[in-house]
């Protein structure tokens, strides 16, 4: 019985690090809310998503300890992310969805 093999421990992350990450997250949240006030046209959503991705990265790396996990975790997350991207891209190739839906709207307007 191999009880001696301890839980692979992370280096102790200081409380201060967590607090800084939390502050950064709050600042980024106010940033998105603030940016939403301006009309950046087609970039509004892109900026909002960029901020969300940065926030997710912070949560993942520090709160979820990904920075200190073995590489295999990172690869697995990459695979999941890529699958998600593939699903979205390949659905969007079918652009009849948008013309179909917009056609419906136009038909409604004509009534």
């Amino acid at each position: 019985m191999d009880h001696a093999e301890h839980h692979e421990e992370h280096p102790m992350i200081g409380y201060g690090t967590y607090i800084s990450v939390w502050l950064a997250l709050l600042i980024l949240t106010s940033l998105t809310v603030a940016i939403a006030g301006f009309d950046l046209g087609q970039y509004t959503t892109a900026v909002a998503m960029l901020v969300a991705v940065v926030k997710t990265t912070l949560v993942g790396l520090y709160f979820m300890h990904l920075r200190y996990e073995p590489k295999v975790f990172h690869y697995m997350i990459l695979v999941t992310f890529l699958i998600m991207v593939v699903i979205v891209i390949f659905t969007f190739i079918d652009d009849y969805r948008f013309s179909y839906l917009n056609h419906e709207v136009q038909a409604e307007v004509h009534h």
Partner: protein
Amino acid sequence: MAQTAAELSYTPYHRETSAFSGIFSWIFSTDHKRIGILYMISVLTMFIGGLCLGLLIRLELIAPGATVIDAPTYNAVFTLHGVIMIFLFIIPGIPAIFGNFIMPLQIGAEDVAFPRLNLLSWWLYISGAALLIIALFTGDKLPDTGWTFYAPYSTATEGNISLAVFAAFVLGFSSILTGLNFITTIHRLRAPGMTWFRMPLFCWGLYATAWIQVLATPVVGITLLLVILERGFGVGVFDPAIGGDPVLYQHLFWIYSHPAVYIMILPGMGVISDLLPAFTKRTIFGYKAIAFSTVSIAVVGYMVWGHHMFTSGMSGTAQIVFSFLTFLVAIPTGIKIFNWIASLYKGSIELRAPMLYTLSFIFLFSIGGLTGLVLGALATDMHVHDTYFVVGHFHYVMFGGLGIALFGAMHYWFPKMFGKMYNEAVAVVAWALIFVGFNVLYFPMFILGWNGMPRRYYDYLPEFQYWHVVSTIGSWILALGIFMMLFNLIRGITSGEKAEDNPWGASTLEWTVPSPPPLLNFLEPPHVTHGAYDFEAMNKGKKDSKKKKKGKK
């Protein structure tokens, strides 16, 4: 041999004492082998149910017009046949039965990574099956949407679709837990020396399958939940009356259900890759090529779902892209088939029952795969879409592929699981009946479909009757063969001869433990020193240990 002394001291897993007794020592057991047997009993029960429904469909179609059941019942019967066969038989099929029982043995582990989760997964399977049966008897009418639950019909029909769909959701959860367990097990619990490229190819098949189970099933989960929300609250996402797009349902459904086709077939391919070396007594040709093609099928499988929707009103670009990518699947599949055939070369082939199933798999799956190219090509698909050609195609790949591989696996691992042997002569006769019946049943469907017989129809024009009759006769031969095979196996369990530890002379790790294996599988911790199909190293190792013993004496 080493185990003679050990044999006296070990207790086989099914005789092991536990906190529970009787049936509870099985249904509350976290032993992967007991769970594998539980799955085997429940999955095969469902299979027989689905089989009877299939026979009923074929019987109804023996003549045009009403024959034995009325049209609404017919719709319900083919729906149930599909739902049971897909969700309760072929998706859990090989991974849940043989993945559970054999995979930990093959990689030299004591159990899977999460034994309790494994048991939960079986209970979810049983709950899903129970919910499905409840759904049958609680609606205003039987579920009649087809196994695909296409919106908007599924959001509008009076059958108890919500519960049926929820049953599928629960079954999906069961499938996810199995996949999650297998990935972790293969990553963490391989025995010392069991490197990735020493693993049997069955484990590679399960590994790729498990990733699809984890990364595709949730998509159908949310889709099915939305069908329930649509029916309950009218969220409108798939309902054109509110503003939704039913074709989007099809996209989401096939985002899961096309990769799910590979959940079904990859473990079957893994079985074949394990059986071939065992009955040719030579290493598999192109081990790495088969392993990588397994993974690439899983990856490419995510990008081809649109070929189920060529006539659903997709954009032309999407049709062409999906059609093109569909052809890519043929490359890794072809690599596998050529490697299997090359593995026969200069092998000492033994035509035992599992090998007969293996060879039939290669033959039937090739027909299924090649007709798949007919369907994947945009132009020809327009002609045969939603005809019996499709029905023939997927029965050749699914039943001729996975089903036959499952039967092969049942014969191959039978001595390991039960410590007994079945009657070889009866097994061969049953195989012959299955092989002949299969082709008589499903090949006419290609002809029917090519001539324009649509799938799922209750009635048909008189000119189609000839091939329908042939097909129905085939269904009887096939069913006879299957029942004969099952009967033979059950008789093997009750009164078969005692099996040796390694009756086939196979080289993988599960054959080094006693039959049936003890509770924690290995009497002494395994240390792997050679690849899965390295017969030379295996024989050399045996000689060495014999020499050592002689020396000791």
